[in-house]
């Protein structure tokens, strides 16, 4: 049905799709937090890295079954996200008057505080675990490299795990946002923080919940990619962080479906680019998309008029 080239090409699309799903999981947390606080969380990539290390520790010391592993990483991400919020974001939220809410200096301070936390966490991880790549225990890594043939197409078992985990998380997130009280609160704060205060939403608790949800998803993305690629390292959060940021901007800054679609599109485009260019150049795709989006679609591809979050 396909000649060799086509099979290889389709294979690349599948690989790109898997990576794109991971970007999407990271981008969702980014977008949620941006939607609610209106600031970029620079430490989101480190949450992803923490997820990978928490997963690695669990594998080495507990060797849990797959589902338990993902739940442990989810919990680690939630704890890390809540601590991050308390350390880097909460201190700047006690200023309630409009002048500081609208002030640029206030937003920049919050940006810098999350950047500071990200540097501290990354450096601390290097101190504790070393800066090198650490391999995932072979038994686990191998289990995710099992080829599964679909016709002539070979899909790694890990790609199916990523797909399954991503779908479960997307659906859970939609359920939380649209069917629960806390989801309603998150959407209310994202839509109108002042209005949310008037209807009695506990804004502080809502922000914490947002960090918990976004960080839990980011951490799971970290262990998924670690398992899939077989290694983890302290700076691993940077590249997916940049790509998730690009997906968020392309998606219109405040649209979760937009960010997910753009993240997958980005992952696939990178995979296709490696067909034609050397690997190093493929990383430029994200920056190219960012620049093109900012020039031609300043409100994003899915941005204008949509509900925030």
């Amino acid at each position, binding site marked *: 049905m396909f000649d060799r080239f086509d099979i290889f090409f389709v294979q690349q699309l599948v690989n790109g799709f898997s990576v794109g799903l991971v970007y999407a999981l990271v981008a969702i947390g980014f977008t949620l937090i941006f939607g609610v606080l209106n600031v970029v969380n620079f430490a989101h990539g480190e949450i992803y890295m923490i997820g990978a290390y928490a997963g690695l520790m669990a594998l080495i010391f507990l060797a849990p079954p797959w589902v338990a592993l993902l739940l442990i990483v989810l919990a680690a991400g939630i704890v890390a996200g809540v601590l991050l919020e308390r350390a880097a974001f909460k201190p700047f939220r006690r200023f*309630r008057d409009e002048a500081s809410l609208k002030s640029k200096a206030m937003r920049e301070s919050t940006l810098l505080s999350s950047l500071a936390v990200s540097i501290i966490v990354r450096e601390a991880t290097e101190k504790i675990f070393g800066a090198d790549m650490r391999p995932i225990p072979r038994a686990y890594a191998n289990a995710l490299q099992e080829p599964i043939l679909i016709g002539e197409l070979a899909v790694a078992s890990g790609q199916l795990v990523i797909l399954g985990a991503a779908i479960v998380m997307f659906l859970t997130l939609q359920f939380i946002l649209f069917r629960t009280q806390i989801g309603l609160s998150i959407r209310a704060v994202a*839509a109108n923080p002042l209005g949310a205060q*008037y*209807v*009695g939403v506990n804004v502080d608790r809502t922000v914490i919940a947002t960090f918990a949800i976004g960080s839990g998803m980011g951490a799971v993305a970290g262990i998924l990619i670690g398992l899939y690629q077989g290694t983890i390292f302290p700076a691993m959060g940077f590249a997916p962080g940049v790509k998730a940021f690009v997906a968020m901007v392309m998606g219109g800054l405040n649209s979760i479906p937009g960010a997910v679609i753009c993240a997958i599109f980005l992952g696939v485009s990178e995979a296709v680019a490696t067909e034609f260019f050397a690997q190093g150049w493929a990383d430029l795709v994200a920056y190219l998309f960012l620049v093109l989006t900012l020039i031609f679609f300043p409100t994003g591809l899915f941005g204008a008029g*949509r509900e*925030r979050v």
Partner: protein
Amino acid sequence: MSAVLEVRDLAVRMGAQTILHGISLDVPAGGIVTVLGSNGVGKTTLMRALSGVYRATSGTIRLLGEDITALPSHAIVRRGLAQAPEGRQIFGAMTVAENLRLGAIGEADQALLERILTLFPILRERYRQRAGSLSGGEQQMLCVGRAMMARPKLLLMDEPSLGLAPKLVKQIFDLVATIRADGTPVLLVEQNARAALRVADHAYVMDGGRIVLEGPARELAEDERVKAAYLGGHAHA
């Protein structure tokens, strides 16, 4: 009559600027009290401080005898003080249904929802539409309906008639009377002094962050200073 709301010497400072200099006012049970004043005298700042959106620098706010001065906004709503704020502050990207749901505390009360949808038929008609697609008057109805969903023991309304067509303005003031008849006292901030004095029992006049005049609404409506400054000196007052 015991007071639902007692404000004593409330001051609010924003940065270097003091906006409220010691406001004292009462809302009695079952009453409609109005606060009048021109643009920029601090009416909205007062309303925000009462809802816990701004912090009081000094002074006390008591709701049904309880000191709520230091409580966060969500705790104040939970204790029964709801507000239809200036600028409406609805959730434009969400549906009318979701806006009303957000107004409720805990489980939405179906009988109350039914009462509100009967009071505002337009909200029933537009129940599943984005709130942002409603007209200004409809958004004001939604804003008031949303506040009523909290089953408030005191309802604050900040310039509900602002920017509405005359027919809608009349509807809003009729609504204030209806809400009181349902048993909920109302603290109403207005620039439309004539209509506000007609519906209210008691009135306060603010200027420069202070209360400069107070009295029964009927008396203030006849007060020469009020007539000159706020009733525009129209012959048909």
